[in-house]
């Protein structure tokens, strides 16, 4: 017999008071000490709610109605308080910036100890010890602003480990991290698991990234119910992921395209374990069969940046001699680590900041003297967080705002708003309040409110951040449609899939400079670029390597071409 489970859900149902339907139905789940569990599911499936139940935010911070029982270490959760639970379950939240309560690393790690009334000296001792476990002991006095994404993750982890908890719960740990940092985060979690043998629960929809290291079991949640509880190998070879709209690993998609029947005895959950004997030949045949697409004619150059240099403080250059040309009708991505200058570039292009030297041309016109307002009619910027853009209660007013501020007559505004909302698939909501919309729909409202000014170019900052595969596909297909209508689109992104699948061309930035300006398939197979820009090789590259395909970049490119062709055929 196994040990007693550390977490045990029995016929558990939960309904938020604010909602009509239960968010979780009839959950039966046992998690044993020392297990490493991944919980996946699309947005709104209830996976975060399940996490909140485990760490006690439900029912203590979010009220609702509970049926059935949840026991943690044999204690019935509903009878405990959140503080007692926080000694058993340590939670690392999604946004490592947002959960940084202290002003320095040391103070943040100490937070739980402070609340436990541990004397100051003893506290410093414990903090040093725990910080050493995650290699942060030399940075105890650093402020959160001086840390890299990975270091922030380590700090958050140390902050919950000071309590010597039994269970570590990670709520979407990869959401705001660049690809390389995400990879490191998964490695840190795995190392801690091996070192301490604590129970690890990871809630995440980026399956491929989590599977970078082993997990014992994957629990799949959809529409509030557990629909699968199986090993990674079984899950990856099943059709469950595609059905519920969670993205399967990219190399699995490639195998399926090549007509290979993926089964669990091929050990497909990781490329390291994948058995290649039945894979190599069909993969090569498929690769050779893909035709090169006809090169599309490029339009005239619409935007030129010439030696742009900009500094916020007069010392460090946020942009250093940046030059590029963008053609009419292109869809390109700008990638690079946090702080590489991507957002600064978009601000300079939109006129929010004025470059110190260099010029920006729209067609042949130097736009230096155009005000922010005037530039917005050429280049629109959609910010990452829709809540930072929306200032009206009603959708119609929100979209009409830019026109009203430009004194467009009201009888001209209505048809323009209607048209834009139609393009954005929001026509049925024209008279709705913004608050009734989902996150993805709000995002589209912000795009609509920019689009209504008819800019020729739109810049989108992380358009798909925090979106599951279904909504991701929805947004990206929408942007592709816009692009086909002639709008030039620039995407600032961390998402390597997005860059690979939707933007033929990518500009890679690092320390304010342009490192590369080339096709996405080249970027994601060039190890030097990948390292300097904190990116990550695509798994397709390793798949090609394992199959002894010599030109790996070409393999990745063919995959993209094939996929694009598929999408085109699906539309018609």
């Amino acid at each position, binding site marked *: 017999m196994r040990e007693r489970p550390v977490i045990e859900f029995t016929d558990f149902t939960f309904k938020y008071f604010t909602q009509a339907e239960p968010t979780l139905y009839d959950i039966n789940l046992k998690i044993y000490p020392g297990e490493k569990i991944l919980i996946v599911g699309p947005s709104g499936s209830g996976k975060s709610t399940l996490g909140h139940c485990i*760490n*006690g*935010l439900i029912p*203590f*911070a979010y009220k609702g109605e509970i049926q059935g029982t949840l026991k943690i270490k044999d204690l019935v959760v509903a009878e405990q308080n*959140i*503080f007692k639970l*926080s000694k058993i379950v340590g*939670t690392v*939240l999604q*946004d490592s910036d*947002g*959960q940084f*309560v*202290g*002003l*320095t690393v*040391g*103070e943040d790690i*100490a*937070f*739980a*100890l*402070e*609340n*436990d*009334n*541990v*004397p*100051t000296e003893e*506290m*410093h001792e414990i*903090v040093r010890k725990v910080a050493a476990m995650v290699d942060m002991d030399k940075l105890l006095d650093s402020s959160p602003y001086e840390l890299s994404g990975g270091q922030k993750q380590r700090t958050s982890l140390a*902050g*919950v480990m000071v*309590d010597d908890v039994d269970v570590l719960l990670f709520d979407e740990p990869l959401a705001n991290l660049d690809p390389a940092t995400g990879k490191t985060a998964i490695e840190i979690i795995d190392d801690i698991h091996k070192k301490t043998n604590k129970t690890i629960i990871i809630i995440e929809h980026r399956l491929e990234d989590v599977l970078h290291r082993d997990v014992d079991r994957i629990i799949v949640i959809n529409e509030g119910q557990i629909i699968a509880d199986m090993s990674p190998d079984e899950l990856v070879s099943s059709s469950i992921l595609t059905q519920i709209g969670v993205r399967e690993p990219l190399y699995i998609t490639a195998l399926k395209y090549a007509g290979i029947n993926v089964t669990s005895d091929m050990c497909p959950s990781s490329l390291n374990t994948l058995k290649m004997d039945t894979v190599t030949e069909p993969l090569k045949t498929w690769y050779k069969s893909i035709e090169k697409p006809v090169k599309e004619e490029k339009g005239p150059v619409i935007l030129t940046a010439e030696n742009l240099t900009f500094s*916020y*403080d007069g010392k460090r250059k946020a942009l250093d001699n940046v030059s590029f040309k963008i053609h009419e009708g292109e869809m390109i991505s700008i990638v690079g680590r946090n702080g590489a200058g991507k957002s600064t570039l978009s*601000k300079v292009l*939109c*006129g*929010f900041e004025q470059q110190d030297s260099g010029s920006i041309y729209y067609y042949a016109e130097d736009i230096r003297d155009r005000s*922010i*307002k005037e*530039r*917005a009619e050429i280049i629109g*910027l959609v*910010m990452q*967080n829709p*809540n*930072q*853009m*929306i*200032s009206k209660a009603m959708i119609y007013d929100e979209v009409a*705002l*830019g026109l009203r*501020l430009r004194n467009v007559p009201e009888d001209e505004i209505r048809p323009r708003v209607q048209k834009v909302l139609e393009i954005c698939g929001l026509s049925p909501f024209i008279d709705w309040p913004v608050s009734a919309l989902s996150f993805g729909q709000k995002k589209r409202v912000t795009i609509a*409110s*920019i689009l209504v*000014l008819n800019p020729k170019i739109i810049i989108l900052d992380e358009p798909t951040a925090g979106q599951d595969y279904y909504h991701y596909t929805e947004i990206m297909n929408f942007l592709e449609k816009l692009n086909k209508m002639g709008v030039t689109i620039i995407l600032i992104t961390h998402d390597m899939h997005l860059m690979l699948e939707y933007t033929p061309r990518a500009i890679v930035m690092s320390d304010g400079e342009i490192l590369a300006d080339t096709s996405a398939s080249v970027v994601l197979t060039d190890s030097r670029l990948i390292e300097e820009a904190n990116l990550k090789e695509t798994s397709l590259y390793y798949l090609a390597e394992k199959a002894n395909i010599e030109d790996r970049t070409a393999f990745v490119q063919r995959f993209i071409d094939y996929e694009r062709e598929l999408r085109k055929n699906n539309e018609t």
Partner: protein
Amino acid sequence: MKLKLFSYNFLDTPIHRLSGLTKLVSFLVLTFAVMYSYDIRFILFVTIFSVIILKVAKIKYSQIRLMIIYVLIFIAINFVLTFLFAPEYGVELYGTRHELFRIFGRYNVTLEQLFYQITKVFKYGSVIPLGIVFLLTTDPSEFAASLNGVGVPYKVAYAVSLTLRYFPEIQRDYRNISQAQQARGLEMSKKAKFADRFKNALMIIIPLIFSTIERVEYISNAMDLRGFGKLKKRTWYSKKKLTTSDYIAILASVLIFAVSVLISVFINGSRFYNPFI
């Protein structure tokens, strides 16, 4: 562009090294001392003392210019109002009358009134540099620790420190939102009419409030999950142990306070120093 109002910057000066508790206690004690006494000799002494402290803490004028301007405006208004409401108060206080010149009606400028009001100006002038020193040399968490140390409930103390901690981030949000709204056509410059500018400011403030609420919910969850508010008391990681210099500083402030009381009792016989008799 870098509006750093009230922002703590770490330098290594004797003042920065003092514990936040010491600075808070000294600030309060000295404030009481100055508020108690109306002896301009004593007040001038404290004024000079606090300017010296300001220098020792290496606070630059550019950092505090805005604050100084506001304070000066406040003092000027206070000066005028005091005269308007009680032009004879100095005479009443000091018991003599040396009239300098007459304005109209009951508004006569007397030496006594002038002396009284100048004393008052220096009263404010002497504590304000001390307040500035306290704010600019104490890091927000230590500030919270010291508030808690003098008896403020820790939840209140922590709220103050969190506000200071997130101030720069909310400023950054404000800037981002304002730029995005300007791109949509919002006129924030002086070109717009006052009423429009007010309406326009609202269009920045609403998204700011919503994104701030989001942030607050997130932080309060993070804090709950790590046991904030569990016990009646809490300890502080950043609390500095009191050193000899802390004791010296507190002792010095208490001495100054004592001097203020002693001067009143034994030399002046009242809280006022009267040069007129």
